[in-house]
């Protein structure tokens, strides 16, 4: 029987020479810092400025989403929070789910839920119309001009 010994100093074969985990780790730090700023400004604007919490209603949200700044702001919050949370759960699953099958299905569930939430949320932020033209008049908020 012959055994092949690799030549001295030959580079070791590494599985998956990628920086995925490095980028995931960096993303967690960066998105965490950004989210602190985004969320606390969001809370401040919604709950403290102006009439504060009493002003919060359908019309208030409609008004904010008429402004591109808040559209982008909320979009950033949605994406960063979802991806930050999903990556956190991914590491929890990697750490604690020992069986390969269980780990796979938990992650499939996680990524499905994330995708649905992000797609739906993005869609709502950009297509939100407080006064859809073909809606029944009694369902519309008071500020809509009923033809």
């Amino acid at each position, binding site marked *: 029987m012959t055994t092949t010994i690799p030549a001295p100093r030959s580079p*070791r074969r*590494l*599985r*998956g020479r990628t*920086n995925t*985990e490095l980028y995931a780790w*960096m993303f967690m730090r960066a998105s965490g810092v950004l989210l602190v700023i985004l969320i606390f400004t969001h809370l401040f604007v919604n709950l403290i400025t102006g009439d504060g919490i009493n002003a919060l209603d359908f019309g208030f949200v409609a008004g904010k989403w008429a402004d591109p700044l808040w559209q982008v702001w909320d979009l950033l919050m949605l994406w960063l929070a979802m991806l930050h949370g999903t990556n956190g759960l991914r*590491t929890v699953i990697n*750490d604690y789910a020992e069986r390969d099958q269980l780990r796979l299905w938990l992650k499939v569930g996680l990524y499905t839920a994330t995708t649905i939430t992000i797609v739906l949320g993005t869609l709502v932020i950009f297509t939100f119309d407080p006064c859809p033209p073909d809606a029944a008049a009694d369902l519309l908020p008071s500020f809509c001009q009923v033809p």
Partner: protein
Amino acid sequence: MTAVAEAPVAGAVPSFQVTLRLRRFNPENDTEPRWEEHTVTMHGTDRVLDALHKIKWEIDGSLTFRRSCAHGICGSDAMRINGRNRLACKTLLKDLPLDKPVTIEPIKGLAVLKDLVVDMDPFFEAYKSIMPFLVTSGNDPSRERRQSPEERARYDDTTKCIMCAACTTSCPVYWSDGQYFGPQAIVGAHRFIFDSRDEGAEERLEILNDRDGVWRCRTTFNCTDACPRGIEVTKAIQEVKRALLFRRV
């Protein structure tokens, strides 16, 4: 506590009763590990290892544990003492709460072979995989490889490792996932990555950049708390992360 008949001598070492609650497992008879308690009379200068010796030598010779030098250098007798990874030879009994039994278990995350002896192979495999040897290129120098005191100080902390596995087996990620390299392997890599004479840093960093490398560290500091040599293990892991981020060694 049994009273000693004679009058106490000035400077005499106090003695007291200690109950040790031991996690026993004999693969020939037991299907499950079991608990066993022994109460022994020990002295203020005694360590947990002395109590284990007393039990093994005077009460139950079948009690199995590793120890070699018995003075905190060989790294053989790491065990879970009252839920914390410690060297039995460096833990004084008088420093433990003696009103309750002292719980002694094998270190976690490695297969128990018998009583307090675990299979250390996965631990040493992880260490081997980070290439714990000097990597250089070119011709051998005709004199020793010189290094300044500052360059030596850069990795001084991680040279203290005695490979007792206390850190690795205190890591929650290591407990649940046998693939993680574990703190000790990263400490071992750190010792060479930051050595100015070594040229294998890139390769070692690449190994630790793996899915099961440094990025699995959750910074719980269990390893730093467990290290009987006082190595700042979590700091070393963070330094390897930083080196990977900036590729600046």
